[in-house]
């Protein structure tokens, strides 16, 4: 009766005088078997954070060790499911426990009764190494699950291979001999959530994650295997941007982590994604999505774990050779969970009460992204897109600043833009992507040789506009010289006609790269034609009076995605109308 609770303070409990627990070990706390994790060990006290509500717990209740670190079971059945922060299936919990989340629920991550049609690839006598694929089964209409030798087994020889057929996740598929030890391999395996899964080697990033969102793809692209942060005050559209990326990006699998956010938002994702059809495959978006939900009223310690649960699931699918995109909404809530636990442990706080290890935790998380050759010999990638909710919309606060150091793409959401209902409210001047030079070859081959030049010119026009607006704010636009008036008009077309995108419009919600380039080209064509006309002596009022600027502002609605030939008509009209202007 040594291992009993000595002290309770919120989600943190302490045991006295025990040496039975290891750091980061998963434990069961009390009669209800609440799940906890050891976060501190000293000769006097063992400190445990509990992932569930501790109300009702008593001093003297027993704590049971599991002997292994906090782990998640990985196997077929994860896709399309929704889990809480410690990977318990919420849909199954709803069936057994009712509408509220119940403490001590021990429903397994993967339904042990569900069976899959398995094709066994390994034969008796084969020599297998860590990460090698030995069986396949279809997990959802889109995803084939590949069973892999756990990375902990370096080399083994198959002594028994089951025939192809229908198996449950815990049925024996292979028996292997690893250095004289017989190990049974099933369709699933366990992995500690705080340890990155190993890969063969990392490879250079060279492909953008195509999202169909114009400002992202054309102005601040993120890489497959890269990292991006979306910081923004409340109401600027972080969640909306994340949803749009999750819906339309060309990753194979989306892991959406709702970390300390609204319950209704998770419900919305559940409902919307089960209705929406993936444009590439024609299947439902849920067939490629995994949801992790720790809403803001669920226990705070599990919020801290939810991020790790999500990334471990992502790495598991990456190892099979898929491209995964993780949406973490929001990493600020995760940082606040760290702060809360740290406060309960009475650790010395650094900036704004956050613990001093906040930057290293953020770095550890973002570094788990990457484009890799996996142990199985496939190529896979994990892209992390993290939302940041800065307190008081002040980007100088610790979470935003530290995140900025570890991501290479920064999509700054802007309050004034959101107030003017300019969505996505990504500020084109303060956002940046370090990946652009690395995509040069990709653009040349897949989009158009002039893509980078066109993009640069568009950016220059926007930059020029922001300089001119300083003057306009002081003295009005009437006094500007004619060529600058044209710049302003063009910039307006870029802002309203190109950067602004309507997520609720059937054509505008997703725009292919080819159309994005055509749109930029036609805007520049009008700009060049107009400046030429000015040089010939045409009046600026006549040029604007042609209505072409207004027409281009609406082209996103007027030209359907499948009619790129309409851009030729637009170009012709520009040449003819502007060309016909008299001096």
């Amino acid at each position: 009766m040594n291992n009993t609770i000595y002290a309770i303070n919120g989600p943190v409990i302490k045991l006295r005088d025990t040496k039975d627990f290891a750091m980061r070990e998963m434990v069961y706390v009390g009669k209800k078997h609440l799940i906890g994790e050891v976060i501190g060990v000293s000769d006097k006290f063992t400190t445990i954070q509990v992932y569930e509500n501790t109300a009702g717990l008593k001093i003297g209740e027993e704590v049971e060790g599991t002997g292994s670190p906090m782990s998640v079971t990985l196997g077929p059945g994860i896709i399309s499911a929704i889990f809480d922060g410690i990977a318990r299936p919420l849909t199954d919990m709803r069936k057994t426990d009712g509408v509220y989340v119940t403490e001590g629920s021990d429903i397994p991550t993967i339904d042990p009764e569900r069976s899959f049609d398995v094709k066994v690839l390994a034969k008796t006598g084969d020599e297998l190494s860590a990460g090698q694929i030995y069986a396949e089964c279809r997990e959802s209409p889109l995803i084939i699950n590949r069973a892999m030798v756990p990375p902990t087994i370096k080399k083994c020889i198959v002594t028994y291979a089951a025939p192809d057929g229908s198996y449950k996740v815990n049925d024996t598929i292979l028996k292997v001999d690893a250095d004289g030890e017989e190990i049974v391999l099933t369709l699933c395996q366990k992995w500690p959530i705080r340890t990155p899964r190993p890969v063969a080697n990392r490879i250079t990033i060279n492909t953008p994650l195509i999202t169909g969102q114009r400002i992202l793809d054309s102005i601040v692209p993120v890489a497959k295997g890269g990292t991006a942060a979306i910081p923004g005050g409340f109401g600027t559209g972080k969640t909306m941007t994340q949803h749009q990326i999750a819906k339309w990006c060309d990753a194979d699998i989306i892991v959406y982590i709702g970390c300390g956010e609204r319950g209704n938002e998770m419900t919305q994702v559940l409902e919307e994604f089960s209705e929406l059809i993936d444009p590439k495959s024609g299947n439902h978006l849920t067939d490629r999505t995994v949801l992790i939900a720790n809403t803001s009223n669920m226990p705070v310690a599990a919020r801290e774990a939810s991020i790790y649960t999500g990334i471990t699931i992502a790495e598991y699918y990456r190892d099979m050779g898929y491209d995964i995109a993780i949406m973490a909404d929001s990493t600020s809530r995760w940082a606040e969970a760290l702060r809360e636990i740290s406060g309960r442990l009475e650790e010395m706080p650094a900036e704004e009460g956050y613990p001093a290890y906040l930057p290293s935790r953020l770095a550890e998380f973002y570094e788990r992204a990457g484009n890799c050759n996996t142990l199985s010999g496939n190529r896979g990638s994990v892209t992390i897109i993290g939302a940041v909710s800065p307190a008081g919309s002040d980007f100088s606060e610790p979470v935003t600043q530290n995140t900025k150091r570890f991501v290479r793409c920064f999509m700054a959401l802007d309050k004034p833009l959101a107030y003017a209902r300019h969505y996505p409210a990504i500020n084109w001047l303060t956002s940046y992507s370090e990946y652009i030079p690395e995509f040069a070859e990709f653009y040349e081959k897949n989009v158009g040789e002039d893509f980078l030049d066109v993009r640069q010119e568009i950016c220059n026009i926007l930059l020029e506009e922001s300089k001119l607006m300083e003057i306009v704010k002081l003295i009005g636009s009437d006094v500007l010289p004619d060529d600058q008036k044209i710049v302003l008009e063009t910039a307006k077309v870029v802002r309203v006609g190109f950067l602004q995108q309507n997520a609720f419009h059937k054509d505008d919600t997703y725009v292919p790269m080819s159309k994005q380039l055509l749109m930029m080209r036609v805007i520049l064509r009008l700009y060049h034609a107009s400046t030429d006309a000015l040089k010939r002596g045409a009046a600026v009022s006549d040029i604007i009076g042609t209505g072409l600027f207004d027409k281009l502002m609406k082209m996103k609605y007027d030209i359907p995605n499948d009619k790129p030939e309409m851009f030729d008509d637009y170009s012709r009209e520009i040449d003819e109308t502007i060309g016909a202007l008299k001096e």
Partner: protein
Amino acid sequence: MNIQYAGLADVNGPLVALEGVSGVAYEEIAELHLEDGTRRLGRVVQMEGDKVILQVFEGTSGLSLDNTRTVFTGKPLEIPLSTEMLGRVFNGAGKPADGLGDVFAEKFGDINGRALNPVARSYPRNYIHTGISSIDCLMTLIRGQKLPIFSGSGLSHNKLAVQIVKQARIAEENGQDFAVVFAAMGVQNDVADYFRREFEQAGASGRVVMFINLSNDPIIERILTPKCALTTAEYLAFEKNMHILVVMTDITSYAEALREFSSSKGEIPGRKGYPGYLYSDLASMYERAGVIEGSTGSVTQIPILTMPNDDITHPIPDLTAYITEGQIVFDRTLDSEGVYPGLSVLLSLSRLMKDGIGEGYTRADHSDVANQLFAAYAKVQDARSLASVIGEDELSPTDKKYMVFGTEFEQRFLKQGANENRSMEETLELAWDLLSLLPKSELDRMNAKLIEEHYRENIAG
């Protein structure tokens, strides 16, 4: 089981410590019996070995180290629940405060509530008609939403809350009961009176449950007030299938009570001295709004908070807006110009409106009209700031039209009487009247067909 512990080991602010205690559960409720025969309630907030720390709801004044006997009840804090509660007034801890005696409990509810499984939620879709143009058109309130009002001292948030309570109607009347749970935290006596009087005059008090914690009542009770109110709301909504609107005022007092309590526990403070868990704490309150599968009722919340120094980046409004589904923000300038309700349209937002308006709910053009009004009013601000530098006469013709639009929008659309109940149709037609003050080419948020259908040709000069 009924062991009595004589005396206390320590008294500190609202907290007392007991030693030599065993068999007590975390967050359990204890009764403290004083020598003078009175009884107070306390909750276990920390335990270490045989030492237990209790927070005392009624305050610790008069407690000494040896004049109390403590009994642990073995239960978390529960309040009696019943449909009889409609029309009654309670104090912050859920005790009757209207002299009508105890409520006959149909069941007891743990006031802490539990986290809803997101899978069990239904996405809120139906709107609540308030009869206030600015809210109905631009920041539509949806059933199951949490939509706070951000105000400042001296602004008309109480008047607006009363008007919403009086006029709130569910779009499709299907005979379902609609009731209001009103929680006042740290309000002045006359404010509490104002609400009571207004509800009575409107004949609404029979469908209102009031929980009142005045500004001089104990702070621990203030922390319990919203929890009691929401427990009642959940009971009426999810077990009695009623549509419940919860109005909570003033969240700022609540957060300050929480800060006072946290600092007396000796916790490490976060921003502006508020505890690091302010976000989680507020969330555990706001997240209790919603609609759940298997019940036809709903809990909609309108928390009201006064922004200290009108600062929207202050932790209380900031964290609130990160949790709630939008916000309605008051503007001091408009208010002093006599515009009621003087709402800052650009800062206000309803996140859920996009799915609860338009065809089948309000009118097909609603969403485009709202977007266009927002965009146009944003341009009014630009025109005004330009006019303040170069003078109104020097503005371009388009900017001049925006100036006219801005004034008309504020005076005709935003401003309305405290008893004026506008229908959705009236509101949207009024919006088109105003949009028609602008040239067609400025209406860049809608398609040509819509403009064709609704634009009034003869209004724009």
